[in-house]
């Protein structure tokens, strides 16, 4: 059985651990984001939403908790979108010709980079959750130990599938690009609509209809749904908005993400099969 993707994985993880600065930055950056943006915005949102009445028996979560899930999702998005960039560097300055000239089937490259990217995302997510708990994000409220474990596994499942989808996409883009500048431009262009047309940092219920429809096609929205469902619960109030997610809806979000990953894998596979690097 072809297990060469483990070699690609091994190498990418070696490099990840070896670049101490990059490793450190990738862990500190989301924590900073949560600390600064979270502190600033939660004060504002709390002031605005304090006037909106919430039913007595309902669960009400702070903005910091609400956006905690969003920060996890956004960090995963950024990390994954840039996860394929190593392929571009390999293509321009290194190992790609050695890889493409080898008898190893090329989908091993896609899978290997996908798995190492997912591993990096998992590490980041765990760090963010830990840091979030430290600064007062109320994850897993009143959960038993088993419930916490299930919740964490659920979050990792969503993060993993989502991450794979964007890593495959990133690999496909990196393989098609000639320069890092081009890649940066394309990824920045992709990031903006994904970022804003999502429920990561604010509720979508007040969006104009078109943007609401777009946000439903946005994988980020579905990731955030999954994370909130597992981290906070399926029924809560935040920023004066009632959030209600059934298990079925969460399952649909997961299926959406799986479909997205399959699509981007197909794109990456197509790009790699055609790829000529001389």
């Amino acid at each position, binding site marked *: 059985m*072809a297990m*060469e993707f*483990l*070699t*690609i994985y*091994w*190498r990418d993880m*070696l*490099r990840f651990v*070896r*670049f101490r600065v990059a490793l450190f930055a990738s862990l500190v950056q989301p924590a900073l984001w949560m600390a600064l943006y979270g502190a600033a915005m939660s004060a504002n949102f709390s002031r605005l939403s304090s006037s909106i009445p919430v039913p007595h028996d309902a669960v009400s979560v702070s903005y910091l908790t609400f956006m905690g899930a969003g920060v996890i999702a956004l960090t995963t998005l950024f990390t994954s979108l840039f996860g394929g960039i190593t392929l571009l560097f*390999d293509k321009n300055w*290194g*190992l*790609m*010709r*050695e*890889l*493409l*000239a*080898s*008898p*190893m089937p090329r989908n*091993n490259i896609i899978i290997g980079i996908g798995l190492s990217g997912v591993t990096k995302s998992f590490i980041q997510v765990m760090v963010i959750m830990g840091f979030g708990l430290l600064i007062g994000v109320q994850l897993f409220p009143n959960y038993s130990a088993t419930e916490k474990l299930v919740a964490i596994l659920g979050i990792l499942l969503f993060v993993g599938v989502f991450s794979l989808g964007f890593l495959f996409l990133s690999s496909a883009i990196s393989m098609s690009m000639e320069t890092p500048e081009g890649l940066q431009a394309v990824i920045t262009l992709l990031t903006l609509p994904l970022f804003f047309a999502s429920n990561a940092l604010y509720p979508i219920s007040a969006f104009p209809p078109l943007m609401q429809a777009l946000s439903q096609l946005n994988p980020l929205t579905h990731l955030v749904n999954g994370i909130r469902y597992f981290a906070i619960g399926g029924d809560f109030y935040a920023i004066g908005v009632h959030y209600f997610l059934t298990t079925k809806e969460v399952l649909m979000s997961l299926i959406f993400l799986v479909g997205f990953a399959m699509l981007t894998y197909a794109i990456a596979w197509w790009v790699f099969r055609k790829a*000529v*690097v*001389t």
Partner: protein
Amino acid sequence: MPENIIEVKDLEFKYGDFKAVDGVSFFVREGEIFSFLGPNGAGKSTVINILTTLLPMQTGIAQVAGFDVAREPDQVRRSIGIVFQDETLDRDLTVWETLEFHGRIYSMPKDERKRRVEEMIKLVELEDKRDVRTRHLSGGMKRRLEIARGLMTRPKVLFLDEPTIGLDTQTRQRMWDYIKMVNESGTTIFLTTHYMDEADLVSNWIDIMDHGKIIASGTPIKLKNALGQDMIYLETSDNIATTDMLKALSAVRNVKATAHGMIVTINTDGTHCLPIIMNKLKEKGIEITSVNLKKPTLDDVFVHFTGRDIRNAGAEKLPKFQQKGGTR
């Protein structure tokens, strides 16, 4: 006759409208060092990229180690080793990791892989650099590591694209020692290089390519003999009269004018012929202002066949050698 390890027939390759390779046929015998020479842009790299399956086959047939390049690319890939012209190392992996990585992506079984990695590190004398990242290696060490990597899987053919480019003279010499050693252990070498003197010393056979075609083919000696046995450079007080006189001599094969004098290629031993020529010129009252005698080098052969310095002057392209491609 030994088997041909590479056979290429009527190979053509176009980039858009530009025909980079224009109907090339040649073969390489098993166990030899085959040099593929030509000016930049001649089409050499395109041919190598097709043979190593990095470029798709457009027109023609190519077989490497008995496998069809177009139909059995995976078998071809398993049979060859490649040292690319540009560095293709991961600068953040160590020497050991580089080889281990290679062995793994070529699916070498663990025991053999471990053994081979150690053998290769020893072969290219990088034992004390084992755990050093490749970014800290010198140019020569990097090349040696790449050769070691190319040899890991015991390829039948090792493609070496400009293996000594950018290296100092001493390191180049050592590189050739390695390459010859590898060849002596049975690996066929397919080589491109810009250093003619090096190609001359190591090659069993040379093909020269230009403008997408093979324009000359032969052993180094045979190619050099095509230019005559010796070359004499002369400057005289009357170059035109001298040329006429020399052309009448049976020992003179060709006289080619240069800016200030002429290059005379002769069929006999120059050390005896030169005094005779000098005496004859003296008899006619022509004064010799400069003289030089030398054996033709592969550089001369190269210039001669590719016409690099005469192409602009519109001189003849020596078509008689063109039929030689692919016939031995």
